[in-house]
């Protein structure tokens, strides 16, 4: 009885400890329980080029974005050989100034910023000015604005609809007031400037914003947008459609007078913008943005490790989970496998080959290996040299498959080299022995059982959801251990035993 109590206590302690640790991490450290959904990380690059005028000092000024709101700045860099770089405020914008006393030839300067999109609601920004000075206009224009405002006010309910309506009205070219304000077939800039004018006349804080769309684009350009303040945050509106633009899809680059670019001592200045995206996990983003690292506890967690090491640990923490699946398949289902944990090792190599290719490659490898092994039987070799020969054959066959699949352009075949060779060789030997002793059928049953187990283990070990859970909350491994303990004390029938003993269950 005490043994049972001891056991129950152990399981209880493991479960409680594991779950408490996890709850602590979720509740107090704010680690996301499920959000392994990937998020975009954008690398925005501005490439500034110009020809240096010989013998003159160079002063290149460019406005650079002030990152705030939904977009998180994960690091800026200025790549410019020999140049001094200073950053200063220029009205509402930031300006970077590159300077050098002497340069010749084509100059290339880079500004690069890595951006993340925060999953948290942005913190209330510094109090923006809420009072607006209504612009002074000539009487005719003031009247036209007033006429528009009357109409817009009737059709809008809040700042958002007000801005949308303004832009819609400004696109009605037949309207006399509009014609007066923006002229015929207005340019986009003119439209935006007028919209800002109208909004300000209605005491709504508004401004012109030059923003970069955050989309993969090697040759991006800034778009001119209307920005209006709704009392909490700045909303962006596309003048072409009149619709609001989600703040996290745009990087507001500059909004003041401009110009964006100004080079003293250089000719033909040009700037090219590019946006490159990559997917990262929310957790990584949170960490890189420094949102999570405040807790001293986290500096002792897997999340504090360098990225490369983290990748390794994302695999390692899943091994107990995969092995737990083997426990389940053996103790509760009753599947037979070659070696207890051989399927776990095979499953690890499936990570690279992917499941179906992996199964096909593994089967081919085993089949060829067994054919050679059966031939070796006639040579009557001793066990260890025989295993050595099989191992060599396995390597050769792997090489053959690799070369063949490379020639055929089937690149997945290249990953065959990741199969654990020693395990494959041992499997070939054991399967051959089983084949001879118990017949082909049994060998196939156990072989297929091993493959099925490896497939299940692979699917479990590579499920992104589970990887996130166990990597972020290693406490769950204690829960897994509790399950293993429970499985170890399970005394009921295995699923396949029900089939085996079914004749005994007849009435």
């Amino acid at each position: 009885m005490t043994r049972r109590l001891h056991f129950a206590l152990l399981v209880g302690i493991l479960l409680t400890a594991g779950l408490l640790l996890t709850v602590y991490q979720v509740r107090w450290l704010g680690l996301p329980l499920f959000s392994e959904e990937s998020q975009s990380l954008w690398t925005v690059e501005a490439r500034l080029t110009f020809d240096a005028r010989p013998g003159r000092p160079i002063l290149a000024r460019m406005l650079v974005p002030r990152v705030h709101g939904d977009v998180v700045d994960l690091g800026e860099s200025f790549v410019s050989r020999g140049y001094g770089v200073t950053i200063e405020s220029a009205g509402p914008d930031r300006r970077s100034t590159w300077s050098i006393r002497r340069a010749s030839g084509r100059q290339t300067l880079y500004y690069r910023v890595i951006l993340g999109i925060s999953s948290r609601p942005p913190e209330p920004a510094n109090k923006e000015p809420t009072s607006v000075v209504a612009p002074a206009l000539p009487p005719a224009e003031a009247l036209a604005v007033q006429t528009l405002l009357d109409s817009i006010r009737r059709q809008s309910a809040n700042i958002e609809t007000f801005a949308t309506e303004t832009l819609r009205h400004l696109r009605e070219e037949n309207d006399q007031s509009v014609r007066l304000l923006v002229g015929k077939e207005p340019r986009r800039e003119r439209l935006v400037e007028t919209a800002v004018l109208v909004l300000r006349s209605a005491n709504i804080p508004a401004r012109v914003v030059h923003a970069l769309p955050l989309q993969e684009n090697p040759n991006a350009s800034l778009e001119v947008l209307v920005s209006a303040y709704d009392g909490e945050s700045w909303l962006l509106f596309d003048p072409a459609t009149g619709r609001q633009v989600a703040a996290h899809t745009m990087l507001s680059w500059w909004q003041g007078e401009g110009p964006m670019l100004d080079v003293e001592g250089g000719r033909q200045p040009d700037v090219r913008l590019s946006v490159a995206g990559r997917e990262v996990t929310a957790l990584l983003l949170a960490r890189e943005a420094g949102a999570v690292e405040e807790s001293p506890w986290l500096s002792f967690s897997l999340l504090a490790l360098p990225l490369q090491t983290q990748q390794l640990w994302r695999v390692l923490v899943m091994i107990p989970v995969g092995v737990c699946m083997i426990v389940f398949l053996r103790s509760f289902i009753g599947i037979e496998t070659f070696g207890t944990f051989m399927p776990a090792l095979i499953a690890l190599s499936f990570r690279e080959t992917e499941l179906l290719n992996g199964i096909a490659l593994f089967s081919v490898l085993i089949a060829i290996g067994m054919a050679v092994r059966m031939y070796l039987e006639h040579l009557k070799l001793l066990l260890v040299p025989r295993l050595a020969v099989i191992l060599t054959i396995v390597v050769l066959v792997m090489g053959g498959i690799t070369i063949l699949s490379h020639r055929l352009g089937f690149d997945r075949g290249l990953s065959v080299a990741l199969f654990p060779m020693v395990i494959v060789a041992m499997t070939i030997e054991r399967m051959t022995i089983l084949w001879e002793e118990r017949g082909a059928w049994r060998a196939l049953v156990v072989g297929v059982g091993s493959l099925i187990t490896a497939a299940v283990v692979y699917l479990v070990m590579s499920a992104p959801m589970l990887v996130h859970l166990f990597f972020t909350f290693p406490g769950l491994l204690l829960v897994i251990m509790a399950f293993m303990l429970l499985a170890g004390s399970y005394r009921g029938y295995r699923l396949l035993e029900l089939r085996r003993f079914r004749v005994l269950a007849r009435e």
Partner: protein
Amino acid sequence: MGLLATARRLRERGVLGINRRNGEYVLRYNPRRLYPLVDDKLETKRLAIEHGLPTPPLYGVIRTEHDLRTLPDLLREHPDFALKPAHGAGGDGILVVTGQRGGRFRKSNGFWLSADDIEYHVSNILSGVYSLGGQGDAAMIEYRVRFSPLFEKISFQGVPDVRIIVLRGYPIMAMARLPTRQSEGRANLHQGAIGAGIDLASGRTLDGVWLNGRVAEHPDTDEPLAGLEIPNWEDFLLLAARCYEITGLGYLGVDIVVDRDLGPLLLELNARPGLNIQIANDTGLLTRCRIVEAEPPRPPAERVALSRRVFGGAEGGPARS
């Protein structure tokens, strides 16, 4: 029948599953340090001889490649013999030679082998091909058991034997393991031999199990399996019961072979005997285990008497009188 219904029915009938066998019987009654006594057939044989239990006489042992030099002499002395790995499991690696002619050896299935083949087999055994963990092994050459007419009609070649499960020294279930063409003369159920249940009280055979299904006749000879009476049944049970004392293992499978001249001989012991014996007897082991677990320790003869009294009758109930 649904899975849950099957499970419930099996539980009602006291069928023992692998998990329970391992957890409640093997792990509980068989201390690991005693395993070498049964895993090593040489050790088992030594124990049997020491305690006066009959066992097939040992002709010789080959432990190293060096010892292989003694093989030809050994083979010359004994025209027929059984060659076994000392640590073999499940009947793997056993080679039975029934005769020699002109330097060639006749296997029990009628095929002929050369001396080289035999030497290769021995060397395979030595390198551990047939042993559980793949570690080095010894090859033993012993007396070939002579076919007793007892099971002649219901076996195909090879040597049939009797498997008795013994819990705490009480025999709780028995079956005759009968080779078939499919099992190639071997008496192992995994390899396709038939297991025919045996009524513990009378020593009379019952219907059998073949490849996990129930059969009434031997598939090769078409003779009915049931109704064969094993002479001196008491001796078999006593031999099995005494294995508890000599090994200390509480849950044992005792394999006894019947020799034409020497009578019942202890062939080998198994610390985790298979569960198909339940199908052969159409009875669950668990019910019988529970009964025995409630019994106090007794001397072997009394244990056998109790088992015959309690477990007699086809369904494991009281004996029919």
